[in-house]
């Protein structure tokens, strides 16, 4: 009766270390991919809210144009920025994302300026459609703020894993790039000049 002999392949210590390193690197890579996907998901969440705002802006401007003849410059700037934000971009390209978020930030700043200017036009301010539009706009801004927090949290997690060794090596091999943060509008961080709002 023929006998069959099985040889157990026993790994040596160097092979086991190499295997552990490979497994660790793979797990790290998986975590980075998962974090990048999470950041992209959060970015798409921002885009949903930005689209909501973009579709709201024409209605707001339509009402405002008949009252705000002296603010043509501001209104045109808003239209231009709105078109920029609504334009397609590559979410996997960090520079394109940074530009997109920068435009969104500028639009936010100009819209804030616009809402303040509305205060100077009592008729416009009390217009029922404008009041409703402002309320909806504020709701959307709240949603954008929440989406920004989610995005920044996801980006923070991704960037930390990329910047930490051996993440930096794995990221460069796997072509995973850091993503830009969506920072709050700088105008909101400026100190407020109370004198400008108080009666002389």
């Amino acid at each position, binding site marked *: 009766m023929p006998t069959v002999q099985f040889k157990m392949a026993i790994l040596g210590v160097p092979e086991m270390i190499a295997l552990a390193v490979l497994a660790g690197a793979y797990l790290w890579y998986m975590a980075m991919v998962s974090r990048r996907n999470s950041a992209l998901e959060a970015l798409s*969440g921002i885009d949903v809210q930005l689209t909501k705002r973009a579709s709201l802006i024409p209605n707001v401007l339509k009402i405002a144009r008949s009252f705000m003849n002296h603010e043509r410059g501001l209104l045109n700037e808003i239209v231009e920025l709105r078109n920029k934000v609504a334009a397609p971009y590559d979410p996997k390209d960090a520079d394109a994302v940074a530009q997109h978020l920068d435009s969104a930030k500028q639009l936010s700043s100009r819209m804030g300026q616009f809402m303040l200017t509305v205060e100077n036009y009592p008729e416009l301010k009390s217009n029922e459609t404008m009041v409703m539009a402002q309320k909806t706009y504020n709701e959307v801004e709240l*949603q954008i*703020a929440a*989406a920004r927090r*989610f995005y920044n*949290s996801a980006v923070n997690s991704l960037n930390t894993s990329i910047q930490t060794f051996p993440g930096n090596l794995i990221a460069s091999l796997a072509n995973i790039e850091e993503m830009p943060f969506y920072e709050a509008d700088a105008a909101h961080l400026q100190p407020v000049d109370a004198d400008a709002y108080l009666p002389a």
Partner: protein
Amino acid sequence: MSAHLIRGIESFGDFLISITEKQSKASDPSQYRSAGKDSAASHYNLHIAPFAFEYENKRFAAVQEVKSRLYYSVAAVIFLISVFIIFGQNAHLLGLAEKSTRFSGLPMWVFIGTVVLLGWWTHEPARQFYADVRGEIYPRMFMYFGADFKHHITAPESITEDIVTSKIAPYHTYSNISDYVTGSHNGVGIELAELELSRRNGKHGTKIVFDGLAVALTPKRKFDARIIIDQDAGALMNKLSGLLSFGRVTLRRVKLEDPTFEQLFEVYSDDQIGARTVLTTSFMQRMVDMSRKHHLDKLSCSFHDGKILFMLPTGVEHFPPLTLFRPVDLEYQFRQIVNEMQLVFGIIDDLKLDQDIGL
């Protein structure tokens, strides 16, 4: 006895006046009521204390009735036993059987049935008394918080379903929910019920896993996201509970920026953005402040279907069972109810749930 009761009522009145004065700057119950309404003390003296005498009389009457029915019942049972013994032992002499019979079979069932009926009949005045107290005194107590406050002895199925679907309840096999209260505070709908959850422990035992209040609030601001705020159990336990909670499969952990909030709570939601719309930085701060202020170390809550459901493990019996053998302690009960409603109003005010400006 009456003099003792009057002294008790007076001392409770003094107690309420003293707490009203002490809390006038901090958490005066009247701050939760509209101007012109009675303070807790005067409400007690006006609307509840007079009934203390009436209910004490009712209790005496009920005790007397139970006692006399008990005597009749005991006499009836002794009579029945005697009849069975006499007839059983002498059945052969009376020609009912060939030899003396044992106390079993149909006679035994007749005896048991009669004892049960007598027991029910004896206890009936007590049951009627409890129903009267719960049905008449609790509405008087809750009147203090507003005309829309209603007390019900039994809780509807919906609140139990809310607790089950909220996924904040600990694992349990039995639930006991009672004393359901509805009302509103500054436009925020309030539903609360006393809740005890327990699970099997060994072959015959049970272990209480939750004892406190289930509070459902309907804030003015509407929200779509489903959010669970649970106690933080440490990094490893959070990970494990996230993996093992089958009901939370569709919910993902929401990592928030506030480190103090993150230390105390763990948040899960089906909508990362919706959850952050609700859990703004100021809301998180208010949650932290509120849990510290009211010493709610083990607070957990759920945002679902436009309602916020809190499980407050107070460990206090807010609606203690009544007994015929002690005076009706309306003082204690009203004090407990005022405390518990203060807690609920405090949660609404501290979390600004009455404002439609974002939570």
